[in-house]
């Protein structure tokens, strides 16, 4: 068995890709041109009725390009005749077919050579979800990048937890999140998201606000928070060790969980964060974070995340 380093694996993957058996093809630029001309132009395309689309796609509805009608696939045996069509024979204009084919052959060769080159970017030791990049650190993450106070203010979760225990949930929310939260009412929050507010089953937020980083933050009575943001864009970085990270199945399109205290870096600050579940669903990014004292287990957080509607 081989002991694979990242570099070794990437290098071998590149050769696997380059050597992959994709079979021979008789398609070239001229044949492609003839193929698409025979299939009809954009203007001639007629959107399929749902029933037609279902029959064609086997029930699949994914991808907008699926709404295009599908021209008959040309059997391999007929492709030579496509290439043999006279240049311009179907209203085509321009260079003779053989010249286009020669250019295409050269391009295919160049593309093939380019594909042999390994991916230029190494797989960095990070991953991410939505607008959050997660940097994996060795050892205790709270002893590494989290101590950098130049970027912003690093807060002690225990302090905010004490505030929560004192019953000042709004103050706790400010401590956990940001000093410059702007409070919202529900209609403002929903207008910001462009949809109804997703909330965990059986919970109602005691505070709705928007931080400078955007999105809507809901604060619940137990001190947990749910941040919801529409759209994408890289905003946040979380530093956590690999042992704190886990993928969560069956939650949205993609979900990650971080167990225990870790640091969150935003464009303007560094914050100490608690256990959190992050997921992307229906063009929304959601981040459910436990209270500052981590009284909610990660499993409870994940179950709560799954109940969000």
């Amino acid at each position: 068995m081989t002991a694979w380093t990242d570099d070794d694996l990437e290098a071998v993957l590149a050769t696997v890709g380059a050597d992959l058996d994709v079979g021979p093809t008789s398609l070239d630029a001229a044949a492609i041109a003839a193929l698409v001309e025979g299939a009809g132009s954009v203007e001639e395309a007629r959107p399929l009725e749902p029933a037609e689309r279902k029959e064609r796609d086997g029930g699949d509805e994914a991808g907008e390009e699926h709404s295009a009608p599908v021209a008959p696939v040309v059997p391999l045996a007929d492709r030579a005749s496509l290439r043999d069509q006279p240049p311009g024979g179907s209203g085509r204009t321009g260079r003779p077919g053989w010249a286009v084919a020669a250019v295409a052959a050269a391009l295919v060769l160049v593309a093939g050579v380019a594909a042999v080159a390994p991916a230029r970017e190494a797989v960095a030791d990070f991953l991410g979800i939505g607008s959050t990049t997660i940097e994996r650190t060795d050892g205790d993450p709270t002893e590494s990048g989290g101590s950098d106070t130049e970027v912003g203010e690093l807060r002690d979760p225990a302090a905010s937890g004490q505030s929560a225990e004192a019953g000042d949930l709004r103050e706790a929310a400010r401590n956990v999140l940001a000093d410059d939260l702007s409070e919202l009412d529900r209609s403002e929050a929903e207008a910001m998201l462009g949809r109804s507010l997703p909330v965990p089953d059986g919970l109602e937020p005691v505070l709705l606000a928007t931080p400078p980083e955007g999105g809507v933050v809901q604060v619940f009575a137990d001190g947990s928070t749910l941040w919801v943001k529409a759209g994408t864009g890289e905003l946040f970085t979380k530093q956590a060790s690999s042992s704190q990270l886990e993928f969560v199945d069956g939650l949205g399109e993609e979900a990650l969980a971080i167990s225990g205290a870790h640091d969150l870096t935003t464009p303007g600050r560094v914050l100490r964060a608690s256990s959190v579940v992050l997921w992307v669903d229906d063009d929304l990014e959601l981040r459910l974070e436990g209270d500052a004292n981590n009284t909610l287990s990660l499993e409870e957080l994940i179950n709560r995340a799954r109940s969000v509607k």
Partner: protein
Amino acid sequence: MPDALQRALTGDAEAFGVLVAEHLPAARRVAVVVLGGRDGAGGDGVDDVVQEATIRSWQRLDTFRPGAEFRPWYLRVVANTARNHLRSAGRRGHLQLRAAAREVVATGGADEVVIDREEQAEVLAALNRLDDADRLVVALRHFEGLSEAEMAEVLECARGTVKSRLSRAMARLREELSL
């Protein structure tokens, strides 16, 4: 090929042919990776997927965003078409990705060449044990050298999601390699 792209967008089939021909090797690899082999999806095979995807791309050029990259857009159509073929065939591709038989040009000693081929076979076997979604993510990155932004376009997801999907797929590949 910005010129070919511009002309293709005006309905020039010849320019479209040149444009697609440039990306044909990548398109065929993507189709093979999703299908799980070059003859996947009930015998339709990579040729039919690429042809159908090419026709769809032509017919949907009006949805192409000006200024966008053609390659990820086209590869997205290829990947979606391949998935549809799999579903229509009523089964997942359980064929095997294979390395093309070709003459090995030795750049080092004979032992080195043998080891390289063994490693390649090992990785290929591990890839074959992944599902098509994981295979596709790995292939887009390591076969095609796509950037995160390009992968996001192909996979129709956020860039951050690309990172997690790739990380997860690579972790699974490593798991398979460790078996």
